[in-house]
């Protein structure tokens, strides 16, 4: 039996391997960037080979450690002193514990498949080599993040990923929307990262170490963190424990990276990048990194207390994000946008699970979601690819065709081609339909992924992981009487229904019915390089769920036997108190069955028959204003523009007008008029006082303005002097005043 024998020792070469795991892709990045950027075939080969090397190493590690009994208590790790700083030494290192072992299983596999897929998808791109360079760096950073044993290197890799995601989202940098999306993603995540840095600094100040296991495995440290009240500047207490504050700050970083409300706005725009990037960022790597970090910090969050502000915040934001994402996804037409919002929603699921303390469930859903969401993204990419090919096909061969039932425009062929090109959007689901026969492999894999996303019972991975979350939420909320848990449970049930509905909507719109455009008519199946990863991922999307079947689940529990709750037993070791397995409860399972099947059935019914024909309005548009609200994504972008961007601009634009024209001129004018009225009598007074005051005001503004302008002189010495004066002031403050 696979899980029966528990081994207790691991070979010693594992630590060396751990150091080496992130290396090949980073090396590949350097090689491609420095030497092979002119050789397309070579660079993609290097990238794929490096990723395979990493995968092999990661799997050697994984298969050596996955049966270790005490991996959670005694993770395999290796550190080197990086920088001796006075009394303390900043050490960095690598380690593998259950959490990272799971990721070592998932990340390299997903990355390898995405790399292979990219060789097909990006085949005709002029910047092929650059793409693989960035992709390699990205994969290397993700692996580095997974094997890091301390927050410092984790943060370094975290930021490296941020950079790569910036470069990849803006990969088609000549498209204004692409580079705007890149900047948006970068700036938005920066907000969260700022909080994360604060959390990191605070953690270091409190514990003197950034090593995870020194903190998370030591009860004293955790207790200390849990009991120390967080102290703000000038001694204000925040009513929180240090652990709660650290948890909140770290969660800030997670909100940025994992696209939770209110910082979720970057993720939909990030769809401007090539589709493999979307799969990479929004499924396998970057957004998972956020949840990964949250799970890493779960012990700290846990000691902040059952009903602490941290848990409440996490749970509420997660649940809200899940609900919001699902509602928006219902009203999107762009195939990738639907996926993007679905991702936001599913990440909300995980965050909400963490918020109710369901650590294992969150991790499990993260794992399954990575597989089926990567599958869905890649399959959508395949669909887009196919439809685009169909479009080109129509253009290349079907000109006569097109003219047969369009109006002949012989005099303006070029214009025709261009306008047509601009109008046609290969990502719009309204332009698809009936692809089931044209692209069978894509269809079946997409279907599997979609069903997994919807949580189709028993045979898909999504069902098991969602069920786990439901069970936990039900246990905490309805049974335990915790209002937060109740809220989360209800929200998630609604969300899951919506999820099943929009999944079915998407499947029907894309694959069923008849082709609604010529492009869809002429679409063709993608190359094996693209379909092979789909098939592999589909297998995982089906079966990965069986690693965490509850042992007392009817029928299935006995099928998997001793493998039941394997995942829970593995990953739960990270916590000091191993989570108690919940007793099997039929109610959440029924809910889970009901919402999945109900949502899917609703979708099937709504999108059938006439509704799939060309030119028919989408049924959800009948919601009217609500639809527009959802389609515009709850108007968050508009809201942010209105709250943050416009006021700033308005302030800047109007400052001169109002202060200059409004205030100063009004004073001047008033003074002048008053002076004119009593001019004869008070001429001298007028000249001396009124004019003097107004001049003084004007001059005052001018002086202030001049002085302010001086500050930005562009001269390095000047900056140095001002900086020095500030530093001096701070020094004086701390040495002499702030005793």
């Amino acid at each position, binding site marked *: 039996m696979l899980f029966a024998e528990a081994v207790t020792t691991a070979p010693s070469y594992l630590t060396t391997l751990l150091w080496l795991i992130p290396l090949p892709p980073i090396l590949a990045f350097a090689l491609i960037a420095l030497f092979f950027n002119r050789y397309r075939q070579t660079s993609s080969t290097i990238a794929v080979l490096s990723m395979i090397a990493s995968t092999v190493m990661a799997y050697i590690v994984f298969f050596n450690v996955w049966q270790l009994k005490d991996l959670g208590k005694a993770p395999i790790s290796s550190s080197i002193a990086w920088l*001796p700083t006075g009394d303390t030494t900043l050490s960095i290192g690598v380690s593998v514990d259950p959490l990272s072992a799971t990721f070592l299983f998932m990340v390299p596999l997903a990355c390898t498949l995405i790399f292979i897929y990219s060789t097909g998808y990006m085949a005709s791109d002029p910047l092929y080599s650059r793409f693989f360079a960035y992709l390699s760096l990205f994969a290397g950073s993700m692996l580095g993040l997974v094997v890091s044993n301390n927050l410092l290197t984790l943060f370094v890799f975290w930021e490296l990923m941020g950079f790569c995601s910036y470069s990849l989202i803006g990969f088609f940098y000549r498209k204004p929307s692409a580079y705007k999306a890149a900047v948006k993603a970068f700036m938005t995540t920066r907000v969260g990262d700022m909080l994360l840095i604060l959390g990191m600094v605070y953690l270091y100040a409190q514990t003197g170490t950034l090593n995870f296991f020194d903190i998370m495995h030591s009860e004293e440290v955790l207790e200390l963190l849990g009991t120390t009240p967080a102290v703000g500047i000038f001694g204000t207490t925040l009513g929180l424990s240090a652990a709660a504050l650290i948890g909140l700050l770290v969660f800030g970083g997670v909100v940025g990276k994992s696209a939770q409300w209110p910082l979720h706005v970057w993720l939909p725009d990030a769809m401007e990048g090539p589709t493999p990037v979307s799969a990479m960022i929004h499924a396998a790597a970057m957004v998972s990194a956020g949840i990964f970090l949250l799970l890493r910090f779960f012990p700290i969050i846990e000691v902040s207390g059952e009903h602490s502000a941290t848990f409440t915040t996490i749970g509420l934001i997660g649940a809200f994000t899940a609900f919001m994402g699902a509602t928006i996804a219902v009203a999107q037409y762009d195939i990738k946008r639907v996926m993007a919002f679905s991702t936001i929603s599913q990440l909300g699921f995980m965050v909400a699970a963490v918020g109710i303390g369901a650590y294992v469930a969150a991790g499990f859903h993260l794992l399954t979601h990575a597989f089926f969401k990567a599958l869905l993204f890649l399959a959508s990419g395949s669909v887009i690819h196919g439809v685009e090919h169909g479009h080109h096909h129509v253009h290349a061969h079907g000109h006569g065709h097109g003219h047969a039932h369009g109006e002949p425009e012989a005099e303006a062929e070029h214009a025709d081609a261009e306008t047509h090109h601009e109008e046609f959007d290969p990502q719009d689901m309204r332009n698809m339909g009936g692809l089931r026969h044209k692209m069978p492999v894509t269809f079946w894999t997409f279907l599997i992924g979609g069903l997994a996303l919807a949580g189709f019972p028993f045979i898909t991975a999504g069902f098991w992981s969602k069920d786990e979350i439901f069970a936990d939420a039900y246990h905490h909320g309805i049974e335990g009487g915790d209002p937060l848990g109740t809220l989360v449970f209800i929200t998630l049930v609604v969300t899951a229904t919506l999820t099943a509905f929009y999944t079915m909507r998407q499947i029907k719109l894309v694959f069923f019915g008849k082709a609604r455009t010529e492009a869809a008519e002429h679409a063709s199946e993608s190359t094996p390089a693209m379909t092979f990863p789909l098939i592999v991922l589909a297998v995982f999307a089906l079966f990965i769920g069986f690693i965490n079947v509850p042992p007392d689940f009817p029928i299935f529990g006995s099928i998997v036997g001793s493998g039941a709750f394997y995942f829970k037993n593995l990953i739960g070791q990270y916590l000091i108190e191993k989570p108690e397995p919940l007793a099997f409860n039929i109610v959440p399972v029924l809910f889970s069955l009901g919402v999945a099947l109900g949502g899917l059935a609703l979708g099937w019914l709504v999108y059938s028959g006439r509704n799939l024909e060309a030119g028919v309005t989408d049924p959800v548009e009948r919601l009217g204003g609500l639809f527009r609200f959802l389609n515009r994504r709850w108007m968050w972008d508009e809201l942010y523009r209105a709250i943050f961007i416009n006021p700033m601009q308005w302030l800047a634009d109007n400052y001169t007008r109002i202060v200059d024209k409004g205030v100063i001129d009004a004073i001047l004018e008033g003074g002048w008029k008053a002076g004119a009225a009593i001019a004869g009598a008070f001429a001298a007074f007028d000249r001396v006082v009124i004019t003097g005051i107004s001049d003084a005001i004007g001059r005052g503004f001018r002086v202030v303005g001049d002085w302010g302008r001086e500050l*930005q*002189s*562009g*001269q*390095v*010495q000047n900056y*140095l*002097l001002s900086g*020095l004066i500030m530093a001096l002031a701070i020094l004086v403050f701390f040495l002499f005043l702030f005793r």
Partner: protein
Amino acid sequence: MDLFANALNGIPLWWFLVVSAALFCIGLYGVMARKNAIAMLMGVELMLNAVNINLIAFWRFIAPNSPSGLAFAAFVFVIAAAEAAIGLALIISVYRSNQSIDPEKLDQMKL
């Protein structure tokens, strides 16, 4: 403790520290107040020298058995060399394009 007021054949630690502080301040003044980029660089070199005096003096008085002070001083040496090479190359490049290395005139990056 009186012993150490006159360590090292009568030279106490604080003598070195005072000289180093003075050298550092002079260098800082040079960086901030000179009207020539090369002269600024000279100021930087003076500051680095002051730092090195400090490092080696502390090494000698506090931890002569440990290599830390020397190692840091050596890194300062190397980085000073790299800094001079890059800095002067930049200055010459700027001089070629601007015909001036007055830092007050090099404000094209200002918005």
